[in-house]
C-alpha cells in the first residue's frame, strides 16, 4: 500500500491538468465535482495507508520513485511516516471539505473551473511539500504552494486590491525564501546531500563522519526560521497574510489558515534534530512565536473586517505553534496545528457563508443578529468560537493548554513566554467573542433590503462536519491518553522533547487559562452584545486608532522599507543596472547582434559562397589532421 502513496499526489495533480484543459467544457458544477472527487479519493487512500501507524505496526517508510538529478540527493522520493501522514490527512481531509464548500461558494463565478484547477494544484503542491523525503522536494513544494497562493489571492485579478495583495504575498514570501534557500545551500555543503535520511539522522552523521559545530547548526536553523516566518506569517514577515484575505474565502480557509501557513511549523518539526542542537535558535523560534501571538491578537481586537479578524487570529495561533516547536514540544505544536486546522477552517467557512448571505458585506459593524437568519451556521460558529478560545472540552483547549503548560514547565525565562501566551489567550477570548457577538448576536445593524439566508447544502455540510471535528479531535491527545504523542513517536525518534510538568501543575494552569478565557469572553460579551454605534465610528479616529490600523505597520513599512527600497531599486535600476550592468549586457548583446549582422551577408544565398564555407571548414580540419599525422 505504502509504495503507492504517490497516487495521493498524482490524483489532485491529474485533477488540475484535466480541469485546466477540459474545465470550461465540463462547466458548473461538474468541474467542482472533479476537483472534489480527486481530493476526496486522495484522502481515502491516505487514510488507508495511515492505518499501520494507528496500529503501531509501522514506523514509516521511504518510497523511492525515481532519480531526478543524481548526486544532489534531490530524488523524487517520498517519506511516509506519522508526521507526514498527519499533515496529509489534514490537507486532503479539510481540502476535500473545502472543495465541496467551494462548489456552492463559487457558484456563478466566471472563473469557476479555473478556481478548482488552482485549488487542486495547490493540494498537489502542498502534498509534495509534506511528503518529500529531501529538502529538494520540500523546496519544490514550498515554491509551488507560494505560486498557488499568489494565483488564488489574486484570483479576482480585475480588483486592483486583490492583484496588489497577491503581489505583496509573493514578495514578502520571497524574502523568507531567500533565507530558506541559503539554508539549503548550507545543508548541502555540510552534508553533501539534501536527503532527510542523511541530514536528519545522528547515525548517518557518524557513518559519514560529519562534524557539526554549534555555530553552523545555529546558522542553518536560523536561516530555516527565516523561511518559516515568511511562509507561516510570523514577525516580521507577517504583513502579507491579512491582505491575502482578498482571495475567495475558501482559499483563506484552506491555504491561509489550515494548511500552507503551517508549512513553517511542519518544517521546523521535521528538522527537530537540527533545532535540538541549536538551543539559541530554538529560543528565538519560541520568542518569535510568543511575541507574534500577542502582537497579532492585539490587532485582532479592533478589526472590522470579518475575515481580517480571523487572519490576525491565524497569525496569533501560528505564533502558539512556533512557541511550541521552539520550546521543544514538537508534538504539542503539531497537535495545535491539527486542531487549529479544523476550527479555523470552520470559522473561515462560516464567515464565507455570512459574506455570501450578506451580499458581499464584510464589515462586522454592519452585521448583528444573524443568529436568527442563519441558525445552522450560527451553531457551528459557536463551536468554532469555543474551540479557539480554549473552553473545555473543545479542541483548542487541549492543544493550546498543552503548549502553555509545557512552556511553563521549562521555567526560567520561559515564564515570560508563558505569561505572554496567557495574555494572548485572554485577548483571543476578547476578540473572538467580539467577533461572534457583533456578527451573530444582538440587534441587526444591516439595511432592511438585505435578507440574509442560510447557505446551500454543499456549504452547510462542511460546516457541520468541521464543527463535529472541532469538538472531537481534541481528544486525540489528552493528558490522560496522549495517543497523538504515541502516534508521532517514530517521527521524533531520538529527539529530546519537552513534556508536561509533573503533578498538579498542568491542572492548575489549565484552570487558570480557562478562567482567563471565560473572563475575557464575559467582558467582550457584555461590551459588544448590544453595541452598534461604537463600532460604526469611523476607523482611525478614536483612542484605539493605532490598533485599528494594525499599528500602521504597513505605513511604516511603506515609509521605511518600500520607499527607501524603491529609492534603492531606482538607483539600482536606473543608475547601476541601466548604465553599468545593462551597459555591459547591452554591450554584449549589441556585440552579438552586430556580429550576427556582420555574419549575415555570408548567408548570401549563393551556393558558391556556401561551398566556399564548406571547403574552408574541410581544409581547416584537413590541416589539423594532417599535422597530427605528420608531426
Amino acid at each position, binding site marked *: 500500500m505504502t509504495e503507492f502513496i504517490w497516487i495521493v499526489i498524482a490524483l489532485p495533480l491529474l485533477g488540475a491538468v484535466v480541469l485546466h484543459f477540459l474545465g470550461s467544457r465540463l462547466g458548473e458544477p461538474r468541474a467542482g465535482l472533479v476537483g472534489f472527487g480527486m481530493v476526496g479519493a486522495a484522502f481515502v487512500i491516505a487514510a488507508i495507508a495511515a492505518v499501520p501507524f494507528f496500529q503501531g505496526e509501522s514506523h514509516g517508510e521511504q518510497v523511492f*520513485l*525515481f*532519480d*531526478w*538529478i543524481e548526486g544532489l540527493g534531490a530524488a*523524487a522520493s517520498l517519506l511516509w511516516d506519522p508526521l507526514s501522514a498527519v499533515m496529509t490527512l489534514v490537507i486532503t481531509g479539510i481540502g476535500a471539505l473545502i472543495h465541496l464548500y467551494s462548489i456552492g461558494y463559487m457558484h456563478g463565478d466566471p472563473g469557476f473551473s479555473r478556481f478548482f484547477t488552482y485549488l487542486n494544484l495547490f493540494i498537489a503542491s502542498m502534498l509534495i511539500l509534506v511528503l518529500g523525503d529531501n529538502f529538494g522536494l520540500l523546496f519544490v513544494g514550498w515554491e509551488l504552494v507560494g505560486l498557488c497562493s499568489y494565483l488564488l489571492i489574486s484570483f479576482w485579478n480585475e480588483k486592483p486590491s486583490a492583484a496588489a495583495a497577491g503581489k505583496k504575498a509573493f514578495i514578502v514570501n520571497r524574502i523568507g525564501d531567500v533565507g530558506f534557500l541559503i539554508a539549503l545551500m548550507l545543508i548541502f555543503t555540510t552534508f553533501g546531500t539534501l536527503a532527510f535520511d542523511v541530514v536528519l539522522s545522528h547515525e548517518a552523521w557518524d557513518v559519514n563522519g560529519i562534524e557539526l559545530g554549534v555555530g553552523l547548526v545555529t546558522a542553518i536553523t536560523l536561516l530555516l526560521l527565516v523561511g518559516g516566518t515568511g511562509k507561516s506569517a510570523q514577525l516580521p514577515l507577517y504583513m502579507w497574510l491579512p491582505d491575502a484575505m482578498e482571495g475567495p474565502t475558501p482559499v483563506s480557509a484552506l491555504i491561509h489558515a489550515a494548511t500552507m501557513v503551517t508549512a513553517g511549523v511542519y518544517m521546523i518539526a521535521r528538522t527537530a534534530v537540527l533545532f535540538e542542537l541549536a538551543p539559541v535558535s530554538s529560543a528565538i523560534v519560541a520568542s518569535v512565536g510568543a511575541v507574534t501571538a500577542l502582537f497579532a491578537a492585539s490587532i485582532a481586537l479592533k478589526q472590522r473586517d470579518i475575515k481580517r479578524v480571523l487572519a490576525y487570529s491565524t497569525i496569533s495561533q501560528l505564533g502558539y505553534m512556533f512557541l511550541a516547536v521552539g520550546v521543544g514540544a514538537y508534538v504539542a505544536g503539531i497537535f495545535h496545528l491539527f486542531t487549529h486546522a479544523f476550527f479555523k477552517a470552520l470559522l473561515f467557512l462560516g464567515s464565507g457563508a455570512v459574506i455570501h448571505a450578506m451580499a458581499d458585506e464584510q464589515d462586522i459593524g454592519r452585521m448583528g443578529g444573524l443568529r436568527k437568519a442563519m441558525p445552522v451556521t450560527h451553531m457551528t460558529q459557536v463551536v468554532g468560537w469555543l474551540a479557539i478560545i480554549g473552553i473545555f472540552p473543545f479542541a483548542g483547549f487541549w492543544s493550546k493548554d498543552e503548549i502553555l503548560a509545557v512552556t511553563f514547565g521549562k521555567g526560567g525565562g520561559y515564564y515570560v513566554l508563558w505569561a505572554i501566551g496567557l495574555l494572548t489567550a485572554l485577548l483571543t477570548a476578547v476578540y473572538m467573542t467580539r467577533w461572534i457577538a457583533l456578527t451573530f448576536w444582538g440587534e441587526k445593524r444591516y439595511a432592511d433590503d438585505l435578507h440574509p439566508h442560510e447557505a446551500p447544502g454543499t456549504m452547510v455540510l462542511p460546516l457541520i462536519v468541521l464543527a463535529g471535528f472541532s469538538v472531537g479531535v481534541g481528544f486525540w491527545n489528552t493528558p490522560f491518553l496522549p495517543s497523538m504523542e504515541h502516534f508521532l513517536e517514530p517521527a521524533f525518534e531520538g529527539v529530546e522533547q519537552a513534556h508536561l510538568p509533573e503533578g498538579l501543575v498542568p491542572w492548575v494552569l489549565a484552570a487558570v487559562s480557562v478562567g482567563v478565557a471565560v473572563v475575557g469572553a464575559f467582558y467582550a460579551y457584555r461590551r459588544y452584545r448590544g453595541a452598534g454605534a461604537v463600532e460604526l465610528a469611523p476607523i482611525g479616529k478614536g483612542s484605539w486608532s493605532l490598533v485599528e490600523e494594525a499599528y500602521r505597520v504597513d505605513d511604516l513599512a511603506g515609509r521605511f522599507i518600500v520607499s527607501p527600497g524603491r529609492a534603492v531599486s531606482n538607483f539600482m535600476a536606473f543608475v547601476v543596472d541601466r548604465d553599468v550592468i545593462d551597459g555591459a549586457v547591452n554591450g554584449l*548583446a549589441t556585440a*552579438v*547582434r552586430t*556580429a*550576427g*549582422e556582420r*555574419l*549575415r551577408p*555570408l*548567408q548570401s*544565398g549563393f*551556393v558558391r*559562397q*556556401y*561551398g566556399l*564555407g*564548406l571547403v*574552408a*571548414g*574541410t581544409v*581547416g*580540419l*584537413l590541416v*589539423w*589532421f*594532417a599535422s*597530427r*599525422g*605528420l608531426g
Partner: protein
Amino acid sequence: MTNALYIGIGPIIAVTLGVVVLLMVEVTLHPATRVWRLISFGSLISGFILAIVQWADAANNPQPIFSHMLMHDGFSAFGSIVLIIVAALGLLVAWPLVENDRARGAELVALVLLTTIGLMLLVSAANLMMVFLGLEVASISLYVIAGFIRKGARSNEAAVKYFLLGSFASAVFLYGVALVYAGTGTLEITAIAGPQFAGLTQTPVLLVGIGLIVVGLGFKVSAAPFHMWAPDVYQGSASGVTGFMNAGAKIAGFAALARILVVSFDAQRGDWGPALAVVAALSMVVGTVLAITQTDLKRMLAYSSVAHAGFIMTALVGGGAGIDALWFYVVTYAFQVVGAFGVVAAISGVASDESALKQYVGLGRRSPFLAGVLSLMMLAMAGIPLTAGFAGKFGVFRAALEAGYTWLVVLALVASAVGLYFYLRVIVRVYIDQETAEQPRVVITDGMRFALTTVAVLTVAFGVNPAPLLTVVSNALPF
C-alpha cells in the same frame, strides 16, 4: 545465426515493403488517401514492432550480419525505434500536405519512408560502404522532399542547393572512406580498430580520412561551418515536413558519427576529439549568434538546430562514455524539433515556406493548445529544468566535463544563456504582445493534435523523470 539475420533487417524490410506496396498500389489503383495512410502507418507500425523485437534479441545476441555489412545490436535497434517514431510523428504533421496534393501525395509519403530506410541503414551499418549507401538513400530522398513544392521558387532553390552542397559533402565523405581504406585496407567498422592495424593508427592518410568523414557527417547534422545550407533548405521546404527532415538527419547522422568514431577510431581520439570540440564550439557560437537576428521562426529554428548540433557534439568529445548522453539529447531534441515545426506547419500552413515571427503574436488567445506546445518546445530547447531539454544538456555537458573539456562546457553554458533570449522572445510574442490586426483562426487536424500532444507529453515526462530513457539509452551502445 540465421535468426539474427532476419531479426536484424526486419524493421528495414517492413518499411521498404511499405514503400513498394504504396507506390505499386498508387500507380495501378489510384486509391483514396485513406489507403495511403493505411499502408504507410501499417508499415511503420510493423517496423516499430520488429525494431522492438530486434532490441530484445540484440540485448543477448549482438553480432554483425550479412557478411559484416549491417550490425545487429542495441544501437541499431534503438536508432530504428526512434527513427520510426519520428517518421510517424512527421507524417502525422505532414498529412494535410499529402492530402492536399492528390496527384503526388503518395510520392511524398514514399519519400518520407525512403528517407527513414536510408537513415535506418545509416545507424545500422557495420561497413563504411553501407554507411555511404544509407547516407545517399536518405540524402537523395531528402533533396526531393525539399523540392516538393514545385511551384515555390524557394522550394526549388532549396532542393538545388541542398543537392549541390549535399553531393559535395557526400563526395568528401566518400573520399574520406577511400583514404581510410587506403590506410587500413578494410571498410569494416569493427575491423578498422583491430589489432592488425595497431602500428598504423597515426598515419596521415588515415587521419585525413577521419577528418573527411567528420566533414561529410558534420554536413548532414548541420554543424558549423558546414551548416550554411540549413536555413535556406529548412525555410524553403514545406513546413509540414521540415521537422522530420531536421530531426531524422540529426538522429542518424549523429548515430553514424558516434559509431564510426567510437568503434573504429577510438585509438585516434586524441586527434579527432579536439577537432570535434572546435566544430562543436563553432556550431554553438554561429548558431546562437545568427539565431538572434532572425525574424522568421523557421530560420530561427534552423540556426538553433546548428547550435544544438554543437551541444550534441559535446557529448562525443570524450568518446564512448558520452554515447548515452548523446542518445538522450538527440532523441529528446528530435521530439522538440518535430513539435516546434509542427506548430509552424499549423500556423503558417503545411505548404508554406514563410513563418514570420509576427504571425505568432497573440497565439495564446487564438489557440491556447498550439501556444502551449510551442512555448514548451522553446523552453525545452532553451534547456529549462523539468523539460527534457534540461536533462539532455545536463548529460552532454557532464560528458564533456568528464572528458576534460571545461572550456567547451563554459562556452556551451554561455551559448545556452544567450539562446534563452531568442527562445523566450517567441514566448513573449505568443503570450504578451498585442495583436495589431485580426489574425486568421487556426484549425488543426486530429493527427497533428495527436502528434503535438505526444511530443509535449514526452518532453515533460522525460524532463520530470529522465531515468527510464536514460536506462534504455545506456543499453543502446554499439557492439
